[in-house]
């Protein structure tokens, strides 16, 4: 993950991702209510909770794709959507999106150029090789299988420098070898100093995390070590795979 963090800005002592009293409602329905969390540089946080708990809402708020109705959130000390925050934050959404007339390689070149990746060609080739996208560089989005789309989406999130990585169910659709590669990439990213938030239902991701933040009905239910005993007490097995 060489060169992943240099382009980011923000005060040294400020955690790269801070939310305080963050809330989002839709016509009275509370998608996320008074949520407070800080994620430090080099920390991997597993964001867990049943469907509709508010995980994706939080990630979208942090990415600047949603507007909060209460509280505040800062990325690298700046509000989401600001130039500094966009420079600092990389988002891997739950459903991959592609330009219909650009190939995988062109997407990677474009995103790398937009974010000023140093040595983009080497980085692109590295990600293509490690994620098993060899031979698919010239494919259009519509020609990719679900798993290949997810791999391309992961490559797009990692091809650029960032200080904060938000990943929404990143292991969905990946085969076991690709999951291992993703774990390796996340570990390298964390070692390089990025703050990582991974929304997940998977116990292997929770086990790999430094910290576990659990949401239920839009409210914080747990924030602490990824302790299986605590998680079993909080959630049914049907709500959380293997917890």
């Amino acid at each position, binding site marked *: 993950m060489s060169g992943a963090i240099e382009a980011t800005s923000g005060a040294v002592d400020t955690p790269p991702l801070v939310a305080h009293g963050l809330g989002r409602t839709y016509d009275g329905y509370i998608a996320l209510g008074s949520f407070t969390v800080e994620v430090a540089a080099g920390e991997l946080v597993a964001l867990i909770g049943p469907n509709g708990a508010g995980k994706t809402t939080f990630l979208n708020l942090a990415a*600047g794709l949603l507007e909060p109705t209460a509280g505040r959130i800062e990325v690298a000390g700046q509000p989401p959507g600001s*130039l*500094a925050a966009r420079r600092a934050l990389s988002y891997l959404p739950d459903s991959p*999106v592609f330009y219909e007339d650009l190939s995988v390689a062109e997407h990677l070149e474009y995103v790398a150029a937009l974010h*000023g990746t140093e040595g983009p060609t080497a980085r692109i080739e590295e990600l293509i090789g490690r994620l098993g996208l060899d031979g698919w560089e010239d494919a*259009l989005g519509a020609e990719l299988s679900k798993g290949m789309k997810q791999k391309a989406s992961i490559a*797009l999130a990692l091809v650029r420098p960032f200080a904060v990585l938000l990943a929404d169910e990143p292991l969905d659709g990946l085969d076991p070898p690709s999951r291992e590669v993703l774990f390796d990439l996340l570990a390298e990213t964390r070692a390089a100093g990025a703050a990582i938030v991974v929304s997940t239902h998977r116990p292997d991701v929770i086990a790999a995390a430094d910290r576990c933040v659990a949401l239920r009905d839009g409210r914080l239910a747990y924030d602490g070590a990824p302790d299986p005993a605590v998680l079993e007490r909080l959630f049914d097995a049907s709500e959380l795979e293997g917890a």
Partner: protein
Amino acid sequence: MDAADRSAGKVLAAGDPVAAMKAMRAARRRRYVARTDVMEVLYRVYLWALGALFGLAFLAGALHEVPAGPSAVAGIRVHAPAVIGLAVAVLVLAGLRSGARGGPLAIEAAEVRYTLLAPVSRRTALRPAALQQLRVATIAGAVLGALVGNFVFRRFPGTALEWIGSLAAFGALVPIAVLGAALLASGRRLRPALAAALGLALVGWSVLDLALGRHSSPATMLGDLATLPLQHGASAGPAGLGAGLVLALLAVGLLGIGGLGLEAARRRADLVAEMRFSASVQDLRTVILLRRQLASEHPRRTPWLRLAGGGAHPIWRRAWQSFLRWPVVRIGRVLVLAVAAGAVAVAGFSQTPVLFALPGPLLFVAALDLIEPLAQEMDHPSRRLLLPLPSAVLVRRHLLAPAVATGVVLAVAAVAAAAIGGNPALALGVGAVSLVPCAFVLACAAAVSATNDPYEFALMAPEMSQAVNFAPLLFAAGGVFLPLFAAWKVEGGDGARVGAAFGVAPIVAGFALIGVAVLTWRADKRERGAM
């Protein structure tokens, strides 16, 4: 991908973000052009040109080139700017509402995901799309205005150059005003209620202008521009001021474009993509549903009026429960369509009967809203098949309430025609004798349209599919055209004209019966297919 496609990607890597964005867009444009079938494009242009030529020739023959009388000219000189201004104000209101919900731009989901989340000025990123939309709308408006000017100068004082020039300028400025208002609302993230309030204030101002005979509203000033050759230069100042205000509105809108909310942009991107696909397969029902989502047009939680309990006539009752939950905007839209239909009918009597072809399509659009209860029933075939009565019977019973409601809309149109035109007895008489058959034709046409399966005939021949999709509109247009044309054509007093309209009522009723037969056949066929 072929070799040419691969090489197109090489230009994407660039030194700075803005250059990268521009290079990517240029590469996509080149690729689009390279993939375009020139012969196919030429063929389409040829078909459009041919259609436009025939249309213009028809209009030229249908429009009487007899110069308007002094009283007509005087009346138009006094009232037309405010009437035109009111129409412009309504369009600006629509633009503001669209902007408050993320319009007018429809940005690709990938563009939101990659470009708008990148450290690139959003104003720089969004400006090309806005300018392209403006360019297309402005040119189309100017051409349409010039065409209208080409016909108008033959009837009214003023030279061809004056009329074509003023109406081309007016035609160009109207879309600029609408898009400028939408860009302002989206860039400044105006709340929908505030955007609607601003638009309604402009509409109210224009109504006051109309009532008081003043020229103070910016929208009325655009009306001054449209009628400049009639004003002998007296309105040049207000017209120029109106044009200046529109251009200022556009400038403010473009300057603030970077403030576009991504939440609204993403939602709009998804809906517009679905809408484009549905429109490409002529699936009007899906287009209507998506458009309602786009406009956040939801039924009211609390109905305007709660119906008293009772188990009798459940289908009739269900339909009225639906109508009584209509949001204000839908009621307003249907009323505007009714008033517009009445106004166009009046213009048909005073100007040219060609205009009688328009009230039918306007009222058909209103009827598409009124047929909603039946359309929902047909949207859920499994639920429909669980009901203890044949589908054809269900469909026929579902026609009654929309037909009655359409009758109310027709009554509004007749009252509007009576108020706008100078002959209330004729307007109300023609309206009264044609109300029932026209209401049933419109309800049946809307029902046939709402229950169309866009893929039913697509495999046989695209032309057949198109004919099936357009037939309801043609029947609606014809059903309303006939009584109006009959009343216009016959010589004599109001009684003779009303009698002529009544005379064609059986033909119009025949149209409705054809609609009922189609619906019955279609429901039976689908029920058999599901068994």
